[in-house]
């Protein structure tokens, strides 16, 4: 057999041997990435503010094992998350469901951003107005608010 044909033959044999193993791994055992994709959406309820996929405690190792087992049983991501909420409460979720007081977490940041933008816009408009008025009328501006008000009244009656 020519060396080129021999190499092709060995390559085909290698591929045939590798394929069933690969297919078996896909069907049976969930990969670490699949487990961590779900674990990342959950938080360790014992050690605060640590996602489950990077938490090193024994409890977290057990919970990742539970996720793996449930994936092996064919449970969906939502089913697994629901199970964890039922067992350990809503605080295990990285993003809490938008109901009850949880709404505040969704409403406050954009509302604060919007409010801040409005205040900033108003302040900037106020800063620009005196500058424009000063440019339009060379008359000196009264610094005393009472005098300013008096001048306004006089202007109205003129």
């Amino acid at each position: 057999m020519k060396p080129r044909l021999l190499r092709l033959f060995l390559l085909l044999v290698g591929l045939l041997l590798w394929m069933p193993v690969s297919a078996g791994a896909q069907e049976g055992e969930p990969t670490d990435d699949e487990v961590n994709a779900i674990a990342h959406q959950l938080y360790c309820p014992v050690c605060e503010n640590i996602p489950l996929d990077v938490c090193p405690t024994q409890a977290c190792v057990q919970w990742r094992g539970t996720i793996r087992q449930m994936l092996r049983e064919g449970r969906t991501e939502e089913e697994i998350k629901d199970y964890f909420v039922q067992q350990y409460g809503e605080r295990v979720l990285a993003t809490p469901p938008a109901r009850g007081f949880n709404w505040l977490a969704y409403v406050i940041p954009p509302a604060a951003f919007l409010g801040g933008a409005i205040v900033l816009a108003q302040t900037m408009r106020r800063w620009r107005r005196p500058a424009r008025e000063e440019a339009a009328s060379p008359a000196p501006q009264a610094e005393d608010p009472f005098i300013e008000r008096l001048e306004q009244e006089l202007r109205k009656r003129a």
Partner: protein
Amino acid sequence: MTQAPPLSPDPASRRPRWGVIVVWVCVLGLLAILGFALIRSQQGPINVGGRIPDFSLTTFDGQTYNTADLRGQVILINFWASWCVPCEEEAAELEQAHQQFQDRGVVFLGVNYVDTEPEALAYLDRFGISYANGPDLGTAISQAFRMRGVPETYVVDGQGILVSRKIGPYASLQEIEAALEAALVASP
């Protein structure tokens, strides 16, 4: 000489600034919520002499215990987890105490805190624990007790009043016996 009419009030100053009022109401409301949450988190565990919150515990084998139905009996409530190393220090002593006091009407309830069932059952098997044990579903019981960690043990008299509280593991069987005797004396 004609008298000048009085100065007319500035219309802008008369108009209520609804935007400002709404913002202040929102800020004060938010502060009230934060204050309420802060007070709750600073409350600490239930005090001795206070009434415990009633709860229902479904055990790993499906039996349901309701503390309201156990009035007249002394209850020992132990919070534990299989991943909790200090819990192991008192596990055998708790079972021994259960064996000693079950004939005197003392009910032991093990509340399994944020754990996985296979590991919890393996733990119970390892220490030969025979009293009622079940998971704290949704951490509802531990939240009601404002529990800080495991192990924590509460001994309650026949009226549902907390007689003693142990934060951390019991040091010896004698310590558990003393807590239960005190609760039995307090119960009529």
